[in-house]
């Protein structure tokens, strides 16, 4: 069962389409990377997952249940940090965690609060008021708030914002540990591929509200393979032919056109097989690496 | 201001008229009936009276209150509410019969007889001979058989005119009333809305009532007199 199942969600703010027909699934135990430039629709999507924003259309299910109808039960198992870490300046780190632990139906032990602060590296500032915290410390506290009640799904929106390189490394290690050792499902968003690729086993790229590419990280980032766009007169037939072929390329789901990832040397062979199958190939374009592809599509905004 | 000036004119005219009467009756003597009344009242050196006071003024809402009235010869009088605030006619409460007659500083002028509440009463006017007294003229309605004063109407120098009506019961032999009613004229009462912070609709009934009735009364109904037991002077301070 998918922990997160998003079916064709869209969100309009007047004439602006912030999210346009996005679908994806996140399986249990996965670290799912949600990649996109600032303003691409990442936070809007995350807010819809957490029922902070009402989708204009589409369905969202978490743990197999509709978020609209089972909100309380679902959110009991979810911990989230959304965008910048906004906190109460007049409360301390410990007081924040105590406050957010109190709203959970399952009691959170005091030892959990201490352990969570240690996990994010804030144990030494536990009783200091947040107004004295740096951005990085607030970020850590935001993550701590998401973790304090031991949720099974953790949603982290740009968790490394404002952190120094050591801090970034710490959070990366934390995410990996949570997934590997504790079996948590983690949905993490960022605008930096370099961050995501180190922790996520599945990546989705969103741009201008639309899903651009989704796939297994290893596959998407294999340097031996290139992203190839095949233009034909009959894309459906071409795709069917490719799928039934021996090439087993990695298909990048797109609404229009055929995008695949396959080894560089296989490109001409694929062209031959399409022509032999009677497909009229108009052009084949190799897009370099996924990073280049990501930079290209995001810089075209 | 106008009212005050008007009062002053009345007072001066009355004083002038009184002095004419006095000069005409240079050899006038105190009326024997007044003497009789004074003798009766003279039995009382002091008293403490317990009673209930009722205030009936159009612009005042007050409940009945328990009072104690202290009197000491010749003319010391104090009304004390049994806890709480008491309202008394300005200057009028001291003008009881005892206070008026005990001064002995007056001449009397017979003024005929009059029927009052089914009784034939002798009417006698008192004119003060001492300019320091704060009243100008007082009219008494007296029962000649009982030597009891049933009504007085007194004009004061500073505080307008008062009528005092008396009813008698078990203490009639000492000339002490069982009920006293002070009647007096009231002025308009009005405080600006900006002071009272009362905005919005005024109670029309209250306004009508205030406009109609310019007379007020204060009644004291006595239940008990403690007579000639001594009263410390501090009570009257």
């Amino acid at each position, binding site marked *: 069962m998918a922990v997160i199942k998003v079916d064709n969600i869209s969100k309009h703010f007047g004439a602006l389409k912030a999210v346009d027909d996005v679908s994806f699934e996140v399986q249990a135990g996965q670290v799912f990377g949600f990649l996109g430039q600032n303003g691409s629709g990442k936070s809007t999507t995350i807010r819809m997952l957490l029922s902070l924003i009402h989708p204009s259309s589409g369905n969202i299910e978490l743990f197999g249940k509709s978020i609209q109808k089972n909100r309380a039960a679902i*959110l009991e198992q979810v911990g989230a940090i959304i965008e910048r870490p*906004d906190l*109460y300046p007049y409360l301390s780190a410990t007081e924040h965690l105590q406050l957010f632990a109190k709203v959970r139906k399952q009691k959170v032990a005091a030892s959990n609060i201490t352990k969570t602060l240690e996990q994010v590296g804030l144990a030494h500032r536990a009783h200091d008021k947040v107004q004295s915290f740096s951005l990085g410390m607030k970020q850590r506290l935001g993550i701590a708030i998401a973790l304090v009640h031991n949720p099974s799904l953790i949603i982290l929106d740009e968790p490394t914002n404002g952190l120094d390189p050591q801090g970034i490394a710490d959070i990366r290690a934390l995410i990996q540990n949570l997934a590997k050792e504790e079996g948590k499902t983690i949905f993490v968003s960022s605008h930096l591929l370099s961050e995501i690729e180190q922790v996520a086993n599945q990546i989705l790229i969103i741009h201008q509200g639309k899903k651009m590419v989704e796939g297994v990280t290893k596959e998407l980032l294999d340097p031996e393979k290139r992203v190839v766009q095949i233009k034909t007169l009959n894309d459906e037939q071409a795709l069917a032919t490719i799928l039934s072929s021996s090439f087993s390329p990695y298909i990048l789901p797109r609404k229009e056109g055929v995008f695949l990832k396959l080894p560089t040397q296989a490109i001409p062979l694929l062209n031959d097989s399409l022509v032999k199958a009677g497909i009229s190939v108009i052009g084949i374009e190799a897009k370099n690496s996924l990073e280049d592809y990501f930079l290209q599509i995001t810089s075209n905004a | 201001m106008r009212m005050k000036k008007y009062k002053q004119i009345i007072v001066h005219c009355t004083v002038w008229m009184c002095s004419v009467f006095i000069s005409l009756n240079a050899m006038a003597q105190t009326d024997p009936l007044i003497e009789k009344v004074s003798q009766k009242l003279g039995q009382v050196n002091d008293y403490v009276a317990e009673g209930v006071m009722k205030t009936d003024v159009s612009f005042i809402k007050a409940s009945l209150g328990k009072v104690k009235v202290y009197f000491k010869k010749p003319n010391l009088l104090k009304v004390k509410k049994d806890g709480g*605030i008491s309202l008394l006619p300005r200057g009028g409460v001291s003008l009881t019969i005892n206070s008026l007659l005990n001064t002995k500083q007056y001449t009397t002028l017979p003024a005929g007889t009059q029927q009052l509440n089914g009784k034939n009463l002798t009417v006698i006017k008192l004119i003060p001979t001492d300019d320091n007294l704060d009243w100008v003229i007082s009219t008494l309605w007296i029962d000649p058989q009982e030597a009891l004063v049933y009504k007085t109407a007194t004009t004061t120098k500073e505080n307008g005119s008062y009528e005092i009506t008396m009813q008698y019961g078990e203490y009639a032999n000492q000339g002490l009333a069982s009920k006293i009613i002070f009647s007096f004229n009231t002025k308009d009462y009005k405080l600006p809305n900006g002071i009272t912070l009362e905005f919005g609709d*005024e109670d029309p009934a209250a306004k009508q009532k205030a406009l109609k009735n310019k007379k007020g009364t204060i009644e004291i109904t006595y239940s008990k007199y403690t007579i000639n037991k001594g009263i410390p002077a501090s009570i009257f301070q």
Partner: protein
Amino acid sequence: MWSLIQIELYKIFRRPRTYIAFGAIAALIIVIQFGLKMDGDAYAGFLMKDINDTLTVDGKVLNGYLICYILLQLLLVHVPLLVALIAADMISGEANLGTLRLLFTTPYSRTHWVLAKFIAASIYTILLLIWLAFLALFVSMWIFGTDDLFLMKSNYVVLIEQSDVLWRYVGAFVFASFSLLTVTSLGFLMSSMSNNSIGPIVGTMSAIVFFTILSTLNIPLFNLVKPYLFTTHMNNWKEFFDIKVNINNEAIRGSILNIPKIKTSLWVLTMHIILFVTASVIIIKKKDILS
């Protein structure tokens, strides 16, 4: 739900801003009490100049009960502005801070949170009123002593016996709590419509001033709407201090002149509270939380 209320109260009383209102009320009351202690006789003399022409008033007119009445008259016009400082910040303040999204991603519904916030704001308002009552009534009684309550209204005077006063103040404070809770709910509604607090605070204060003017001006056109304005009813705590008289014009101890007026006002204020809070819940439920 009780956890949420506890959390909201905790947040309210951890903020320094909360104590401004308590301090302001204390300062105002102490200053007025000091002034009246020093110069109260002159003030009382001014109030009683019409009465003194006709009657002698014997007793302690300027006692704690009258001082409390004077204080309530002044403060219950201005305390709503202090209430608005907190109430109008309850939701918009969190939206501005960015913490609203943290609250709305917890396992409690938005309705729960909104109601918890309103209840917490109401508790704050009641505590403020209790503080005002303590200072205005009990401290005044201690400083000025007690006697009958000699109330000088615009057109008449009411003399209420000492023993008949205290329960009226209890009634008046209970009534005043409804008045202030109406302000709380209005501020709360304004707060639910904005992502920063300046607008709702100013908006609430402006609404109170605007409707108060409509309520007090004696213009026939305004008389049509006056019965429905909450500001028309907010000051009817004074009705607890008006008594009935019998046909002999004797005041009836323990009576209230116009109980229906009090009931109507309580009803209007309660309806306003329910309306404003319900509207707040609906607005928040439908709102996209973008802050």
